[in-house]
């Protein structure tokens, strides 16, 4: 079963939920962890994996052979991303704007454009205990996250439990991360910010046709509007975690709740079982009826 952990709002506790879930299941079933928050990957700070394999992820960008180029401007015309243009009588390229669609090379009438690899980040795989760990880390200054997220998701594997830690928001990087999951856990906090962004996140998973459930973090710092919304929408609230200075201190050092407070192990194991039951029941009815 593939479970994505997402949230509209940042900093609500996606990574906390994802890593504690992985640790609670470790040793019971084979677990694979994919950190798809390639802009700010944080799960490794908590699971502390040892990486045994790293590879560079690149996208194809144009390389213009000036001798063959007739400066016909066709490349600039076909590029939808303003990544190639004619200026001062020669072709200039902007690899940081390029999406790697290959239009310029394909449509150049004099075959003056070849493609070369342009590095966007690193894909690393390793192990944290018995958990198989995969993460993407985007190079600083690179704008495009989705190609790297796709590279992380290619390492999907067929473990019984696959946990995907998604980036915040509801736009393309999140959709790329969450797409294809059996279930999506939406982590929120009980504030107007949390509620507003939760509604966007629910809209996103419904658009993708993925059943969802909500986890309310720092549940004691706020109001009841999130739960009321979930009730009205028929979305199950699967877990509430109270705010506790001890938990905050534990998180701040990179320690995991289930390790320091083992009473949380059965809670997270049970969360997984609940999700499993809903997915088996064809849970599309739950939290996804609109």
């Amino acid at each position, binding site marked *: 079963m593939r479970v994505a952990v997402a949230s509209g709002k940042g900093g609500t506790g996606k990574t906390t939920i994802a890593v504690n879930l992985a640790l609670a299941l470790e040793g019971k079933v084979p677990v694979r962890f994919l950190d798809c928050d390639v802009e700010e990957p944080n799960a490794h700070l908590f699971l502390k994996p040892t990486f045994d394999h790293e590879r560079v992820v690149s996208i194809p960008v144009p390389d213009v052979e000036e001798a063959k180029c007739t400066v016909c401007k066709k490349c600039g015309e076909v590029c939808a991303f303003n990544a190639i243009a004619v200026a001062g009588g020669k072709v200039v390229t902007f690899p940081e704007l390029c999406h790697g*669609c290959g239009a310029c090379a*394909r449509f150049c009438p004099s075959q003056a454009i070849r493609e070369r690899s342009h590095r966007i980040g690193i894909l690393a795989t390793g192990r944290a205990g018995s958990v198989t760990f995969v993460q993407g880390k985007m190079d600083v200054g690179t704008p495009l996250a989705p190609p790297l997220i796709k590279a992380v998701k290619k390492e999907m594997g067929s473990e019984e439990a696959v946990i995907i830690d998604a980036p915040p928001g509801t*736009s393309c990087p999140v959709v790329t991360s969450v797409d294809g999951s059996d279930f999506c856990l939406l982590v929120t906090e009980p504030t107007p910010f949390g509620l507003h962004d939760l509604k966007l996140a629910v809209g996103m998973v419904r658009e993708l046709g993925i059943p969802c459930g909500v986890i309310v973090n720092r549940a004691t710092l706020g109001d009841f509007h999130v739960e009321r919304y979930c009730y009205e929408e028929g979305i199950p609230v699967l877990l509430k975690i109270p705010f506790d200075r001890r938990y905050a201190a534990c998180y701040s050092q990179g320690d995991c709740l289930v390790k320091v407070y083992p009473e949380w192990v059965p809670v997270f194991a049970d969360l997984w079982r609940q999700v499993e039951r809903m997915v088996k029941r064809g849970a599309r009815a739950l939290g996804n009826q609109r």
Partner: protein
Amino acid sequence: MQELLVISGKGGTGKTSLAAAFAVLARDKVLVDCDVDAADLHLLLRPQIQSSNEFWGMPKAFINAEDCNKCGLCQEACRFGAIEDYHVNPHLCEGCGVCSRLCPAGAVVMRDHLAGYWYVAHTPYGPMVHAQLGIAEDNSGKLVTVVRQAGRELARERGLNLIIIDGPPGIGCPVIAALSGVSLALVVTEPTVAGHHDLERIMQLAGHFRVPVEVCINKFDLAPAKSREIEEYCRAQGVEVISKIPFDEEVAWAVSRGVPLVQPRGGSRGGAARAVRSLWEKLAERLDVLARRPGH
């Protein structure tokens, strides 16, 4: 005209709460929410929308089934895996148009695509520009650029000298669009391993774009040792931490009531509110110094 960007790398460190407080404390400014994915500043500033504008994203390919002769050329050529069974998945289509140019039957057309809205609004604290990108859309960087441009025009029109920008999380496309060319970036971090890790990446990014940076640590007293570590890291980078804001349940309470933490006069005397006021004074001074710099 100066632009102050509030940014964090890691989400949920308190960008929006701080931006809203600055909106209350600063004079003669325009407010811009560049977190177009999950915009929240309007929840605190209660804008009255004056104009609503369409945001058109990249066009999306569409295959006319009647004209399609199922040659499969489009499917083969699409680098984004967006075409399957002679059907385009709009979530995967990036709008490059290769399929449309290649199709021998002329069956693939590029359709304009409404991807969201942006708004010019009035708030009790001054004019504001914000946006809502459609759910599951791309092109957030483009919309950020549109919103920033609208903010600058509004500032020029009204003769306002400062733009306060609430930034998006991360270090990708929308962040780069929000960061490039601003006068000063305030990085809001938290005393956690993740906060520290993401602070390093966002500071590298700011360095890459040569944007001057100030750092503040929010909820610093939840992990004093981690806060000291972050201060040391910043010092090694040649940046003094400008402010340390204590954890204060009043902040969550203010957000829950949908009001900014501070008020122009009077208002809260709590620890966080006091720290935020003094932070704003320091930032205003820093902006003054930057404005007087030659070449500005």
